Structures are given as C-alpha cells and as structure tokens.
C-alpha cells in the first residue's frame, strides 16, 4: 500500500527505455519515502518480463497478460490501472510522456480525480505548507516542469489527491541498474476481473512501427541546427560535419517546424534530452525550450551570427559567424589535422 508505481510500456516484448528510466527514478523516490517500488506491465506474451525490470530495484511486478492487451489501446489499459490503483492506493504513479503515456495518464487521472503533471523534467520529494488553510504536508512529490513555452519553470504539487501522477519524456531521467540479483515478487493480474467487454470497442486495423533509426539520444557528438541555419541546403552542411567527426544531427523545434529536419531529431523540451560529450549548436538562439534538452552536454560550441545569443551562456566556445562560412572551415581543418 502507498507505494511508488511505474507503468511499463512494451514494444515487441521489450520494456521501453523510458520505463526503465522511470523505474530508476521510482527506486530513488521509494528510497526517500521508505516505501516499495512496484511495476505494472500490461500486454501479451510477457513470460519472463519481470527479469527485465527487477534489476532496476522493483519490489513487485504486476503482470496483465492477454492477447487483447497488445497492441495498446486506451480503454482496457485504463480499466486495469484504475482498478489496481483503487485497490493498491499508490502514493505516486509514473509513466512515460509518450504517445501511450500521454493517452493513458490523463484518462486514469480523470477517472480517479487525481492530479497529473505532464512532461516533468525533475521529480523530488519535499514538504509543503498551505498558509491559507494552515495545513502542513509532508513528503509530497514535487513535479517540476517548464511551462508556458518554457519561459518559466513551475513546481506542481497534488496536496490532497492520490496517486500523484506524472509523465516524463524518454531520455530525461537516467537509467541505472540497482543489481542483477535484485529480487521482487511477481503478481499476475486476473485480466477478466479488471476489464469490461466494451473496453475493446477500438480495434487496431493496421500498424507500422519502426525502430527509431536516428539515435541522437546516445550520440557522443551532436551537431544541432536551429532556425538560424536558414535553409535545408545549409542543413546539409551540418550533416556533412556530423559525418566527418562521427556525430549525429539534431535540431531545435523551430528548425523542425521550418522543415529543415525531421521530428525524430528534435532536441529540447518537446523533443529528446541529450547529454553528449560535444554539442555543436549552429544557428540556435538558445531558448529555454531547447536548452532544457542539451544543457548537460559536457562541451558546447555555439555558432551564431548574433554575438549576444542566449545559447552563448551555455557555451565553452563561441564562434560569431555565418554557418555557411564556419562549417566548411571546420570540416577542412578537421580533415587536415587528422591526416
């Protein structure tokens, strides 16, 4: 009772990275709260799935295995979570800010009248004093997220309603195994008792999933472009530099919106969070929406025509100049110095 729960997403029998990252964060929160960490896996052909999650410090794994539960549809997954949360009364429930988590989370929070905060970038335990009503709250979940287009950072709390629910994007939290020998319990959910026939009203007729081809999340070097790159042609220069120095190409939301790069390359609050050893920011002004996704880079080179661009505050090297002029020189110099 009153434990920390993490909803684990499944794609082709594998627990999603974002879920493992949340288990890592969930373990930390459970330690702070001196309670247990529980995982919920809903899908089909899940035999042995507990082995994927337990090393992350899971004390109990709930498994709902039924062929109607994969691929994911909203209603049966909602019914299982709502009933399970009703019975188990978790104090915290976390899920990925993915197309599944963002479909499921609000539905569950609406059914339970519990607060949900989307896209948190940080989750910590803390106290709260409600001065107006003279009430003290101990050990609440601080759900910290950028708001308002990233111009502010808000700390959200749910003082009275449980569970305290939050979603987090992939790559925001770190994934860390506690111990390969960590042992938890397995609880199989009797699916028939949790779902209703009318939950299966939505049918998936066709499905084309692909493994993300672009892997900017784990790239050691990222050459990222913003709106200031100016054109798709100029973006090719970024690709060329990335290929030469062995990196991946990333982009800001503005560059993606302008059609310079595909969405899967988007870095920032509404894209992925990256921590490369080198981040080369080309024509990126440095709005918080973007920097939230790259500020932990070990080294940053900022190339911009505006010598006062906010991105420069994050940079180890600032180059004031035009992309079309600077990048070819970098490529040339790299080649000459590695001969």
């Amino acid at each position, binding site marked *: 009772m009153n434990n920390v729960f993490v909803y684990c997403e499944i794609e082709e029998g594998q627990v999603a990275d974002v879920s493992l990252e949340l288990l890592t964060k969930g373990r930390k929160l459970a330690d702070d709260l001196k309670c247990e960490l529980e995982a919920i896996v809903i899908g089909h052909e899940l035999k042995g799935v507990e082995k994927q999650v337990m090393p992350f410090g899971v004390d109990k794994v709930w498994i709902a295995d039924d062929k109607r539960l994969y691929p994911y549809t909203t209603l049966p997954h909602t019914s299982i979570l709502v009933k399970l949360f009703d019975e188990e009364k978790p104090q915290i429930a976390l899920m990925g800010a993915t197309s599944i988590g963002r479909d499921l989370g609000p539905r569950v929070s609406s059914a339970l009248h519990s607060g949900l905060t989307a896209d948190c970038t940080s989750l910590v335990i803390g106290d709260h004093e409600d001065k107006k009503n003279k009430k003290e709250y101990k050990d609440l979940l601080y759900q910290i997220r950028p708001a308002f287009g990233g111009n*502010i950072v808000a700390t959200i709390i749910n003082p009275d309603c449980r569970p305290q629910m939050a979603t987090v994007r992939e790559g925001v939290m770190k994934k860390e195994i506690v111990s390969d020998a960590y042992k938890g319990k397995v609880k199989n959910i009797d699916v028939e008792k949790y779902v209703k026939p009318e939950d299966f009203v939505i049918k998936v007729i066709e499905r084309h999933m692909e493994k993300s081809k672009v892997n900017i999340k784990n790239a050691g070097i990222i050459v990222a472009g913003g709106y200031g790159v100016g054109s798709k042609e100029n973006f090719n220069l970024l690709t060329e530099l990335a290929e030469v120095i062995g990196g991946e190409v990333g982009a800001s939301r503005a560059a993606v919106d302008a059609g310079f790069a595909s969405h899967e390359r988007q870095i920032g609050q509404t894209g992925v969070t990256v921590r490369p050893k080198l981040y080369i920011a080309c024509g990126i002004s440095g709005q918080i929406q973007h920097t939230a996704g790259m500020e932990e880079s070990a080294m940053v080179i900022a190339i911009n025509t505006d010598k006062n661009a906010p991105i420069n505050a994050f940079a180890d090297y600032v180059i004031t100049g035009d992309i079309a002029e600077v990048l070819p020189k970098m490529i040339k110099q790299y080649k000459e110095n590695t001969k």
Partner: protein
Amino acid sequence: MKGLKIVVLAKQVPDTRNVGKDAMKADGTVNRAALPAIFNPEDLNALEQALRLKDKYEGTEVTLLTMGPGRAAEVIREGLYRGADNGILLSDRAFAGSDTLATSYALSCTLKKMGKIDIIIAGRQAIDGDTAQVGPQVAEKLGLPQITYAEDIVSAEKGNVVVKRRLERGVETVEGKMPMVVTVNASAPECRPRNAKFVMKYKHARAVSEMQNADEDYIALHNNRPYLNIGEWSVNDIDTNAEELGLTGSPTKVKSIENVVFQAKEAKVLEPTEEDMGELMKELIANHTIG
C-alpha cells in the same frame, strides 16, 4: 442522408512565442490579459478535420465550444469564418484557476447539455500548457472511447469511425464506434483559410458579454439576424458540482514558479577564420573530444 453532429473543442491561448515579464500573476496562474491571444494551433487542425467531414457528409453540423473570458469569442468567430456552423462560449468566474481536470469537468458538463453528439474533436494539446490532457480527460468524464494523435479521420459512416494516428515511432489505423472523442496532431492537414463570404456574414457575430456597450442599432441588427448571436453559457446553464470547478476542483496546485535565468559561464570566443578553426580542431582532437 442524415449528417453528423460534431463539436470542436478550441482554446484561445496566449501566444507563448511572445511572452513578456508580466505574464504570470503572483498566485502562479497565467495573466492572460498581458498577452496576445491566438487560436490554439492544433485546434485549427482539429477544426479542419471537422470541416472535411462536413464536406463529405451532407447535413453535418460543426459547433465550436470554447471556455474562457468574453474575448475568447474571437475563437468562435474565427471558426465561423472558416466554415463552422455555430459556437458556444463557456464563460464564468467559477471556472477561474481550473487545471486540466477541472477544465475537463466543466467541458464535459457542457457537452452533456448539448444533446446528442457523434464526434468531439479537439487539438492534441494547447501551446500554453503542452499537456495533451484535456481531450482524454473529457472522454473519460463522458464515458466515451478516445482516439488521440489523429492525423486523418478517414471515415465516419454507419456508426464507425476510422482514424489514422501518427505516433512517435510509426502510424496506426484504428476503428471505433461513435460517439467518441478524437484529438488531432499538428501533423494533420492545416486548416483552410477564412472564406470571404463567411467573413462578411459573421463579422458582427458577438457573444452576450461583448454586447454590453452596444448601441440600439447594433442590438437591433442582432435581433434581426439571430445567427450573429454567439451562444454564451455560464455555470448556471450546465449541471455541475461546485466542488469540482475552478481552483477548488483542481487537484494540482502550483507551488512555485521560477523565471528562467541563464547561468553564464566563461566561454572562449573564436573568429570564423581558418586559423581559429584550426586551433579549435587541434584542441578537440588533443583532448579526445573528437577523432
């Protein structure tokens, strides 16, 4: 053939690309008065999906529903200019300070009062919160199925809806039964532009709270042309439990907000010359950052 009854949920949002210093109030809620207001972009994608169904199925009626202050009637006018049939502005002090759940509750109470609806279409999320919660929360409160991340409502016939969804790692085509809630992605087709004929017809469309200072002639014009009166509902027009409205009905509270401050760090400034680029590359190779 009998057409569909469609309601589009639309929100007037502050343009978060133009945020000034006084954008937030001391209690952590948004000071909407200080910001330029626009039609939430993905709600326009949602409107386009509704208008396409209207083009396809004769007799279909598209109604916009928005919650907000009096000036949010602008969203309804904008929808009328593009081809919607009518709209309702839900406006009351009682809704002030609502989080997504209290908003969803107020909207679902309104939708219940609007009679039989086949499809409720909303944008996936609003740019002021980026939460994507209101669509699914409304669906849950109404006990309806939902299809989120829609890119194309392929068909809505014989009680069935077929929708193409765009997910982060692929596409999915799903089928469900009406009534249902659909939320639409930005990757869906853009909304058609204003139609000059509709602009002429509806440019004087006003909600009650916009008519406060109207002169007699203007009131007479609205009496003669009923379609110029935008429906405006208050909390008294819907059945609600006051406990679930506004700030009281919102489980999430803003504990604190921080303006974002950039931490400056010492940076080495380089000129875009061959010489400086050469030095930079030598340094990066020497400390094993690249190469």
